[in-house]
């Protein structure tokens, strides 16, 4: 069962979430929807972000591939210019750097798409984004829905609907 509570003041969302967590609801089953970022109990997001790791990996891979590619081209068709060595670390280092950074950017973009769940089908309907209200959504077994709704109402919810908001 899915419960969605509407709060007309975003400051009420954090205590509501805290109350739910205290009552033993799983962090995974709770989600808050807001038009702008709101302060929430940190334990809601206990999973560490992998964005920086992904960025570093993708940077290393892209920079490595770029460097390997440059050396391949210089062996594939070796041309002497200005008495420079064919493998000029100094000269190609700039390109290695730029493409390493390009890899980091790509990694970050992928990390965002993945961790924010963008471009993916939704399992549950989300409340329509609204400029004024904050929504707290709880996913819980049917027998727990009554206490959950009670908690939310006590936390100051203006309205609690079951089965999610209408799309």
């Amino acid at each position, binding site marked *: 069962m899915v419960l969605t509570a509407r709060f007309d003041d975003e400051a009420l969302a954090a205590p509501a979430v805290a109350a739910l967590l205290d009552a033993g609801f799983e962090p995974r089953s709770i989600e808050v929807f807001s038009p702008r970022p709101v302060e929430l109990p940190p334990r809601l997001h206990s999973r560490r972000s992998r964005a920086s790791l992904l960025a570093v990996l993708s940077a290393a891979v892209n920079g490595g591939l770029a460097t390997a590619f440059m050396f391949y081209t210089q062996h594939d068709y070796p*041309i002497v*210019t*200005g008495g*420079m060595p064919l493998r000029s670390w100094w000269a190609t280092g700039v390109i290695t750097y730029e493409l390493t950074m390009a890899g980091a950017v790509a990694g970050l973009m992928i990390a965002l798409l993945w961790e924010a769940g963008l471009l993916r089908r939704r399992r549950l309907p989300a409340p329509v984004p609204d400029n004024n209200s904050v929504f707290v959504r709880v996913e819980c077994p049917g027998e727990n829905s009554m206490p959950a709704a009670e908690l939310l109402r006590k936390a100051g919810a203006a309205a609690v609907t079951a089965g999610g908001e209408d799309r």
Partner: protein
Amino acid sequence: MKREQIGTPRWAMVIDLDRCTGCEACVLACHAENNLPVVGPEEAAKGRAVHWIRVDRYFEGEFPNIRLKYMPVLCQQCDQAPCEPVCPVYATYHTADGLNAQVYNRCIGTRYCGNNCPYSVRFFNFFEPAWPEPLALQLNPDVAVRSGGVMEKCTFCVQRIKRARLEAAAEQRPLRDGDVQPACAQSCPAEAIVFGDLSDPESKISRLAGSARARRLLEDLGTEPKVFYLSRLT
């Protein structure tokens, strides 16, 4: 390196400044030999004339007691050419026999090489070249006509080097000293310009280049030019 191997020539030039009279026959010969575009007076006044070899003048002394000195300047075919590595498309590179080659078909016209040449001997085709009649009739069939938008410069008459090599191969003999003569050297009435193979210690040019009178232009830049200028030691 490959070019150090025996049998690979190192083409070089010696210009004796004490012999040069500044007659500019070399300039004219170069124009005829290498299909240099003729840009017309207005464009030339803008600084767009193309002369692969030019004769620089230097005045010595105070007027009226002046002495005029001449210095023919052409592409110095540097061993450490600053123009080469900056080209993004390898339009200019170093050949095995030490020439600084310009590949017109690769050039896209960034003109970076022209800026990085300390001798200002690189020229750009600002428009498609055109020759007024009857000049168009004397184009050299051995030399490519360059299209608009590409760089060009002295090649040490690479077409003549090629021909001499083919002739020597046909006669099954090695290249001899003096087999190759660029148009400027050929036309110099004072015989101030000598061309030859620096890798052959017996060649005339090796002797001249080793003379105490020999120096190179802007040598301190470390470009290792292969044009030697002979002048009186004062």
